[in-house]
């Protein structure tokens, strides 16, 4: 996987993970992957819905010791 950027969105609550992800995604080129780390419980459903609506691809997600990880490919 071609991870272009890792975004640390740990320790911030709604709507910050979404706002930060959007901002970070803006700087990527189509096909590049953004890795996001978040601790907000709502991040999973929020980022899944956001990726779908914004035309990006949520490739994978994972949880590791309370940290949610997401890999979103820019569409």
């Amino acid at each position, binding site marked *: 996987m071609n991870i272009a950027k890792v975004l640390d969105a740990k*320790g*911030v*609550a*709604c*709507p*910050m993970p*979404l*706002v930060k*992800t*959007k901002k970070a995604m803006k700087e990527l080129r189509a096909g590049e992957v953004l890795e996001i780390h978040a601790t907000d419980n709502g991040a999973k459903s*929020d980022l899944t819905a*956001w990726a779908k*609506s*914004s*035309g990006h691809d949520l490739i994978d997600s994972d949880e590791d010791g309370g940290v949610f990880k997401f890999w979103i490919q820019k569409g």
Partner: protein
Amino acid sequence: MTDTKKTNIILFSGEYDKAMAAYIIANGAAAYDHDVTIFHTFWGLNALRKSEKMHLKKNVLERAFAKMMPRGADKMGISKMNFAGFGPKMIKDVIKKHNAVPLPELIDMALEQEVNLVACTMTMDLLGLQERELLDGIEYGGVAAYLGEAEDGNVNLFI
């Protein structure tokens, strides 16, 4: 990407919690690449007030309104359990504890995300609020300004 979608929120209420809900939705919608507008009317206008005291030409009633209404987002009460001003302190503590974003920062973030903040001029007149008292970088309009955006809006909320 498809055509830009529109989110329009009418913020009528002047309480911290209600304004916070409005601004969280607005910031989320901006992250969704929506064209977002918040129309502030009646008590919602207070979210746009600058915090500093100003000496402006006002009549007695307008001065009374200016004094009784919160001077800016941070001074708003909450809609439930306000407890004569203790409630907002509690809420702000909880916001901090849970790493949520306080209302004044949500408003800054909305401006940064190019959310259109509109103040309703008719209710500004009723409450005696003048442009100089409100934040810089906002717009002014009436019912047509709202309807123009709302008629092809995808999300329309009244808070």
